[in-house]
Structure formats: structure tokens, C-alpha cells
């Protein structure tokens, strides 16, 4: 018989990031008639805090959710490690990483359907130029995801809510902030930003999770249908990189210059991100960090 899944998104309904998931839901509802239907309730923050969503999935209030790893560390602390990924989901499904991740989720009453957005790094945006990986004397607005990284590079960090970033940049209270390629124009930050630093660091990551009991209660046919649809969604991941490239071109057009660090500095930059990221990860759970590292990074 038909199963109806109550689904939510951690990103604002209708936003660029949520739209791929929303298309996925539309297609599912079309093809899944009589088998699987999705009741899409909307996205955070309108429907609640993004960091509370996965708790509700675990508790069975919602059946399915689309979230980034950093939002459900209160259920699965190791979810934060996904930002350190260097391989895409296709490879994870080959090398056994997918099963390992699935096991971690199952222990918390979750089913890991799949992952999108694995090729979209964070960047440092600045209003004064830098020419090396030494950021001492620079003030950066940070989120928890990358505070340790910038501190390690010598920057002083500043926590502030996202709506304040515009004023902070404009008034020069901070010299920069970390963000992904998308969203700069949504907050009008293009008006107060002069530079974007290459290379990027870490990676954005989006995951589709389900309540484990609900998953297990579904027929094989229904499960197969969802898996098939998820694989289709994952195959579109290369579109994200394309989209990022377009977004960066738009930034350049708007006057945001790209600073490309010289190779030796870029190496320090990337290696520091990697080293600090895994150091932090090992503090959370050393065993899992060491094990998962084998799957999600390249040696």
C-alpha cells in the first residue's frame, strides 16, 4: 500500500539549495503514485530551528529531512566530519564508506538515504587583500564550523549573527567572513566585499535522512524506488560545481576580486584546514574520525 512520508528541509523553502531537494520531492510524488508520496511541510527556519530537525526525524515526528552535517551533531556528533570530505558520494558507495556511514546513522535510529552538495567548498571573503596564509591582524566573522581553522592561521575571530555581517563588514568591524559560493547576493554582501580567496576549504554537504523505523517498515519495492530516486539526485551533484562557477563569475562581475594564493601558501592553507579539521574531529570521537577518514579522504 502507499506510504506517505512527512518531509522537511533544513534550508529555507524555495531557496537555491533547497530547490534540488524540492524537485526530488516533486518527481517522487509524480512517479511514486500508489507507492510513495511525500508531504512536504516546508523548510527551516520558518518551520523550526534547523538544528532541531533531525531530533524530530529520530523521534518519528518527521519521516524525512534534508540537512547539513553541522546541524545534527546533537544526534550524531560525527556528522560534522562530513565537511572534511574529499571524495564524492559515488566513490563512497564504491569504497564501503556508505555502509560505514549507514551504520553510524542506524545506531541513532536514522536511515542515511544519500548525500548531495559534496563539491562546494567554503571561501574566505575579505575587504582587504592578503597574499599569504598568515592571517594575523585580520578579524573574521566565523561560524563554529571553521573558527578553529582561522584561529590557527592567526586571525582573530568574531561571532555574530548572520544578519549583522553586512554592517560589520561595511563598518570595518570585521575584515572578512567565511561562506560558500552561493548566497553572497542574497544578503547584499557583494556591496561590502572586495576579495574572495582561492583555494576554498572544507566542503558544503547536504544529506537526505529518514527515520529508521519508517524505512524498515517500507516494502522492498518502496525502498528500491527511494534509492533509485536518490541516485538520480546524486548524479546531479556535478551541477552544483557548475552552479558555483556561475555564482563566482557573477561575483567577479560585481567587483569581487579573486585572490589566488601562491602555490606554497595555498598548500599551507589547505593542509592547515585539513590538519585542524581532523584534530577537532579526533577530539569529538577519535575512533570514528580515524575510521571514517579512510573512506572520505584521499590518502
Amino acid at each position, binding site marked *: 500500500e502507499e506510504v506517505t512520508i*512527512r518531509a522537511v528541509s533544513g534550508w529555507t523553502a524555495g531557496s537555491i539549495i533547497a530547490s534540488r531537494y524540492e524537485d526530488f520531492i516533486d518527481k517522487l510524488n509524480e512517479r511514486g503514485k500508489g507507492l510513495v508520496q511525500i508531504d512536504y*511541510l*516546508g523548510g527551516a*527556519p*520558518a*518551520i*523550526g*530551528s534547523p*538544528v*532541531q530537525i533531525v*531530533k*524530530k526525524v529520530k*523521534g*518519528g*515526528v*518527521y519521516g524525512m529531512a534534508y540537512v547539513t552535517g553541522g546541524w545534527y551533531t546533537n544526534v550524531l556528533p560525527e556528522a560534522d566530519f562530513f565537511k572534511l570530505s574529499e571524495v564524492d558520494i559515488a566513490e563512497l558507495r564504491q569504497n564501503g564508506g556508505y555502509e560505514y556511514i549507514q551504520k553510524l546513522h542506524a545506531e541513532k535510529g536514522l536511515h542515511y538515504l544519500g548525500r548531495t552538495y559534496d563539491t562546494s567548498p567554503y571561501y574566505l571573503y575579505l575587504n582587504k587583500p592578503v597574499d599569504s596564509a598568515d592571517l594575523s591582524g585580520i578579524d573574521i566573522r566565523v561560524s563554529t564550523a571553521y573558527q578553529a581553522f582561522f584561529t590557527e592561521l592567526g586571525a582573530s575571530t*568574531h*561571532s*555574530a*549573527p548572520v*544578519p*549583522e555581517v*553586512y*554592517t*560589520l563588514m*561595511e*563598518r*570595518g*568591524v570585521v575584515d572578512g567572513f567565511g561562506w560558500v559560493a552561493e548566497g553572497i547576493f542574497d544578503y547584499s554582501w557583494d556591496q561590502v566585499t572586495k576579495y574572495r580567496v582561492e583555494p576554498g576549504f572544507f566542503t558544503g554537504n547536504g544529506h537526505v535522512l529518514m527515520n529508521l523505523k519508517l524505512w524498515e517498515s517500507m516494502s522492498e519495492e518502496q525502498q528500491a524506488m527511494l534509492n533509485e530516486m536518490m541516485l538520480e539526485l546524486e548524479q546531479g551533484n556535478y551541477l552544483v560545481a557548475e552552479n558555483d562557477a556561475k555564482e563566482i563569475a557573477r561575483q567577479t562581475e560585481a567587483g569581487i576580486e579573486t585572490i589566488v594564493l601562491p602555490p606554497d601558501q595555498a598548500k599551507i592553507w589547505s593542509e592547515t584546514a585539513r590538519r585542524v579539521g581532523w584534530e577537532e574531529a579526533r577530539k569529538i570521537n577519535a575512533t570514528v574520525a580515524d575510521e571514517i577518514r579512510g573512506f572520505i579522504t584521499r590518502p
Partner: protein
Amino acid sequence: MEWYLALLLMLAIIAVGMAIGLPVAFSFIGANLIGMVVFMGGTGSLEFLSGEMFESVAKFSFLPVVLFLLMGEILFQSKVAFRAINAVDILISRVPGRMSVVAITGGTIFSSLTGSTIANTALMGGVLLPDMLKRGYDPGIAMGPIMATGGIAMLIPPSALAVLLGSLAYIPISSLLVAGLMPGMLMAALFLGYVLIRCTINPELAPVQESVETLTRREKWRPFLVYVLPLMLIFVAVVGSIFGGIASPTEAAAIGCVAAVIAAAAYRSLSFDVLNTALSETAKVASMILLIVAGSTTFSQLLSLSGAIQGMLGFVDGLNLTAFGAVLMMLCVLIFLGAFMDQVSMLLVTLPFFLPIAHAQDVNMLWLGVLFLVVMEVSLLTPPFGLLLFVMRGVAPESISMLAIYRAAIPFICLEVLVLFVLFLFPELALWLPSFL
């Protein structure tokens, strides 16, 4: 469930809760309990209410709200503000309606030091009202300016309410703070003009007294230079640090607190008791506000989850309103609600509807924010439920009836609505100053 039924259910619950006199925060939370069961996923979802309340309150954005409250409270409890008002009182002489003029100028000065309308009114009412009545001032011309000027405190920075609005509506806080300055000054000027004209036409409203005239110029200016001018440094520290790019609004609010403590100490008015009272009073008011925030945040999330908001947006979209029409509609709703509700509640009840409409209509959010602030100021005075009316009831002698207090407020309500109208037609009045930020 159809969107309008969901909407009706949720609104009916809070309406009943408020009508029976249940505190607003509890009305929201009660509605949330029922709404979660109906829209989120049965009784199993009730477990997640506390998590949402935690997330809605533990926000960096609310720090300046709390800190601005503390700053005003320190100046209020240490009596530093009290002496400043007296100094203004001594300085101003020989104008028609002298003490009403003192109330307006003194109140506007204190407005630049506190974010609190209630403190402003209570202070002025306590310091000036008994004197005014003793000297035979008409109660209307005595109480009206005190109440009206009290409201300016939330328009002229610092303002806790502006920060709250800004952080809930994602309007840049510093811009919103600065945007309130000109409308606030305009309002003060209008109040001043009104009092001068009325008292010139009818001098009996405010009998002239002679005693002050014997002071020398030196004696008149000294208290002003000692007790008022240095306080302006606090305003400069707060607003200047935002303008100068030294501090974020949160940090500016913290600077304000430190400056207030320094000022109180410099005037030898700082004691353990003063600090204790200021901290406790800040805690009470902040707790009251944040509890409503906790209740109403989840409330609007449930409205969204139930599809009520999307349904209503579709409905409003079908009305084919212009942006002006939409804003006008919002202002009318707010003025109506303002007769019955306090500022924080009316803001939090309506924002979930107004924000999406405003975004859909591409309304300038900064302008809208200032309009909202002015409407809230009007609602402080509109009967039957106007916070400043109640504060005035608290400080006025028994012999003055509530009706007399209502009557005193009416001309000033009209002036405030006039400012609202001017601001509606000439957005530059609000947008000009922030354009320098």
C-alpha cells in the same frame, strides 16, 4: 486541514487565552501545545517544544536588547537621569507652558540614553508631574507631554525594541537604530510646537511662576553643564562606536552599559544597592520579553508548518495589492491591535504574516521597520491598553481619573499619527541618515 481553519484555530486559542487574562506568553505556549499535537505529529512531538524554545531565545541577536535595558536601568536607578531632568528644568525659563517644555526636552535627552519608554515616562512623571499639578497646570497639558515623550525613547537610539524588531525581521540593526533618530526628533519638535501654541493661546493651562527668574545665568547653566552635557558622551559612545566602525551593535550596547556605570560612579551615585536593583529590574523585563519571544517563535513556526501562512500569502496575493496598499493594511492592523496589546506581543503576533508579504511586495524593510516602530509608539498611548497610560496611572494622584489620562493622550496620539503619515509619504525622513552608515 484548510489553511484558514488552521489559522483560525491557532488565532482563536491565543485570543481566548489573552481574553481570559492569561499572560500573553502562556497564551502562546498553550496554543503551541495544541498546535504541535495537531500540525506537527501528535503528542509525540510535544517533547520537542523545549528544544525550539531554547533555540529561539539563546540567540546572539538578543544580546543588545538585554544590554540596552541594563544601560537605561543603571541611569534610571542611580538617579543620574533624575538630576539631568532637574538641570533642564532650571535652564528653561519664561516660555509658555514651561514645565511641559521641560518634560519634552528632558524626555528627549533621556531618550538618547535609554531604550525604555516606561522608564522615561515613570521618571518624568515622578519628577515633574507633582510640581506641575501643584502649580495649577491643566492635567491634560501636564500629563500629555510626559506620556508622549516617553514613547520617543524607543525611536531615538538606543532602543531595545528597535533591536528586537531588527533581529526578528532581519533588518540591519545599526541602520534601524539610526533610522529612528530623525522621526524621533521630528516628533519631539511637533510636541514642543503643540505645547507652545496651546499655552500661548490659553495661558491659564500653564500658570507662570516667578521664583526661577531670580537665578543668575551662571546658576542656571551650571547644572546643565554638570549634569546633562557629560551624559551626551554616553550617546556619543554608543551611536558613535557604531558609526565609527569600532563596534557591532551588540558591542555598542555593552559599551553603553560600561559608560553608564562610569557616569553613575563619576556622579558618586553608584552603590551596591543601585547595581543590584538595576540588574534585577533588567532581569525581570528581559525575562518577560524573552518568554513571549519563546512562545511566539514556536507559534509562528506552527503557523508555517500548518500551511496557514502559505495559504494566507496566496490569499493576499490574490488581492492584487500595491506595495503601498500592503503597508497601509499592515499599519491599520497594527494600530487596531495596539489598542489591546503590548508592543512585543503585537509585533510577534503579526511579523510571521507581515514579513513574507513585505518581501513578496519588495517593500524597503528599513522603512517598514521605522513605520512599525512609530505605530508601536502610537499604541503605547492608545486606550484602553496603553502601557504608558498605565505608567501614568501609577504616578498620577488618585484624584485624576483614567478618563482624564486618556484625554491627555489624544492630541499627542494625533501628532504621532501625523508623523506616521509623513513618514509613509516621505520615506527619506527615515532612510536618509542610515545612508551614511
